[in-house]
C-alpha cells in the first residue's frame, strides 16, 4: 500500500482528497438545507422537531453522520495543512505590491479559500455547540408530545428560535454564509479541476452549477435566521 500513501501525500493526491471531501460536504449542505427550511413552517416547530428526532435516532443517518464528521475533520485539517505548506512555499517574503488576476474564476474567492474555510470552521464550532450539542447531549431541551404521536420529542425549535432572537447571532450566521458563498464559488469548480475534469463541453456547465449553488445554498441558509428574527414563517406543513 506504499503506492497509496505516496499518492495521498503527493501534492496532487492532497488536492484530490480536498475535492472529494469538499463535494461530499456539498451534498450534506443540500440535505441539511432541505431539512432546515422546515424551521420556516408556521406550525410552531412541530414538523421540525419531529424531523430533528428522526435525524438523531435513525440508525442509517447515524451511520452516515460519522462519515460526515470524518469528512469535515479531514477537509478542515488537510485544508489548514495545505495552507500552512503553501505559505511556506511562498518563502518568507511577500511582494510589496501584488496583483492577483484569474482566468474563469473569481480571484478574491480563489486566493482566500483558507480564510473562508477558517470562517466556516469557526461558524461550525459555534453552530454545533448551539444546536447539535444541545440536541445530542444537552438536557436543557424541553420534551414535547404531539397529538397523534406516541414518543415525546425534544423541542429544538424553541432553542433555535431563542438563538435567532439575538441579532448578534443573526449577523454572525449571515456573515458565515457569505464566507460559504465565496468558498463554494471557487470550491465547486476547483474540485472538478483537481480531479482532472476540465473539458470545453462540460466545464462551462460545471462553472454555471458552481455559481448557482454558491448563491442559492448560502442565501437560503441565511434567510432562516433573518426570517426567524422577524417572526416570518412563510411555509406551511404538508404533514398534518
Amino acid at each position, binding site marked *: 500500500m506504499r503506492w497509496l500513501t505516496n499518492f495521498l501525500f503527493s501534492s496532487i493526491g492532497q488536492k484530490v482528497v480536498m475535492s472529494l471531501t469538499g463535494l461530499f460536504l456539498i451534498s450534506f449542505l443540500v440535505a441539511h438545507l432541505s431539512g432546515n427550511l422546515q424551521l420556516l413552517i408556521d406550525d410552531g416547530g412541530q414538523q421540525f422537531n419531529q424531523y430533528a428526532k428522526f435525524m438523531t435516532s435513525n440508525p442509517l443517518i447515524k451511520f452516515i453522520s460519522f462519515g460526515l464528521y470524518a469528512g469535515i475533520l479531514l477537509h478542515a485539517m488537510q485544508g489548514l495543512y*495545505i495552507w500552512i*505548506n503553501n505559505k511556506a512555499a*511562498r518563502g518568507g517574503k511577500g511582494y*510589496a505590491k501584488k496583483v492577483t488576476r484569474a*482566468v474563469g474564476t473569481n480571484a478574491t474567492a480563489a486566493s482566500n479559500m483558507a480564510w473562508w474555510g477558517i470562517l466556516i470552521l469557526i461558524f461550525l464550532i459555534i453552530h454545533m455547540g448551539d444546536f447539535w450539542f444541545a440536541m445530542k447531549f444537552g438536557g436543557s431541551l424541553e420534551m414535547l408530545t404531539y397529538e397523534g404521536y406516541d414518543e415525546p420529542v425534544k423541542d429544538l425549535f424553541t432553542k433555535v428560535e431563542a438563538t435567532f432572537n439575538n441579532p448578534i447571532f443573526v449577523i454572525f450566521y449571515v456573515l458565515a454564509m457569505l464566507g460559504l458563498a465565496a468558498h463554494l464559488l471557487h470550491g465547486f469548480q476547483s474540485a472538478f*479541476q483537481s480531479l482532472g475534469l476540465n473539458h470545453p463541453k462540460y466545464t462551462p456547465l460545471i462553472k454555471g452549477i458552481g455559481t448557482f449553488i454558491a448563491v442559492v445554498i448560502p442565501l437560503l441558509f441565511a434567510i432562516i435566521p433573518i426570517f426567524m428574527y422577524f417572526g416570518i414563517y412563510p411555509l406551511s406543513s404538508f404533514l398534518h
Partner: protein
Amino acid sequence: MRLTLKVWREGGKYVGQFVDYKVDNISTDMSFLEMLDVLNEQLIQEKETPIAFEHDCREGICGTCSMVINGQPHGPMKSTTTCQLHMRSFNDGDVIYIEPFRAKAFPVIRDLVVNRDSFDRIIQAGGYVSVNTGQAQDANAIPIEKDTSSQAFDAATCIGCGACVAACPNASAMLFTSAKVSHLATMPQGKVEARKRAQSMVKQMDAEGFGKCSNVTACEAECPKGISVTNIAKLNREYMGSVFGSDKVM
C-alpha cells in the same frame, strides 16, 4: 518620461530592501529592460553597483527576464515577457515597484536574479522522450492529427520563465510541470513514457518545495505564453492514471 523606481536590492551592501531611483528622459519606445540599462549606466557613472537582472534573447522567447513589475510577473501587459514590455505601457511620473520572483524554490541570488535550477531538475526528472540513436526515421512516419499536434504545441510554448510560480499565491509549479507533461503525453512519441513521466516529474516538483495548486489560475493570467490551466487538469488525470490505472505499482 520621468519615473520613480523602487527596486529590490539584495547582496553586496544591501541586506534586502527597496531602493528608490529616479530616471529621466525615458523614451516610450524603450523596452523595460532598456530602461533598466539606462538606469544601470547612470549607476555605473555614479560609481554605484548596477542592478543585477537576468536577460538573454530580448525577443520574448527565452524566458530569462524574470521580475515582478508593480505586482505582476513580467508587468502589466498580457502575454508579454519583460523584454517585450515597452515603456509606453507606463505614464510619465509613475512609481514602479520592481521585485524578484518570490518563492522558496526560487532563492534570490542577487537583486532581481533568482535561482531557477529547480525547474531544470523537474525537466531532468522526466521532461523528455527516450529515442534510439541511429538513423532518423522518416518525417511523418507517425501520423498525428493536426489538432493533436497543435494542442501539444500550445503546451510546448512554455518558456520555463517561472512567472506561474511567481504569480501563484501558493508558489505552485503546476502550470510549468503540467505544460511539459501535457505536451509530451499528447504526442504518440511521448505516450510511451507518460505514466512514468507524470510520476517522476510530480515527485521532483514536490521535492523542490513548490506549493500545491488551488486552481486560482493566476498562473495562466500572468503566463507570457498564455499556457492554459487545462494542462493542469490533464496533469491531474495523467498522475491519477499513473497511480490507479497503471498495471505497474507506481
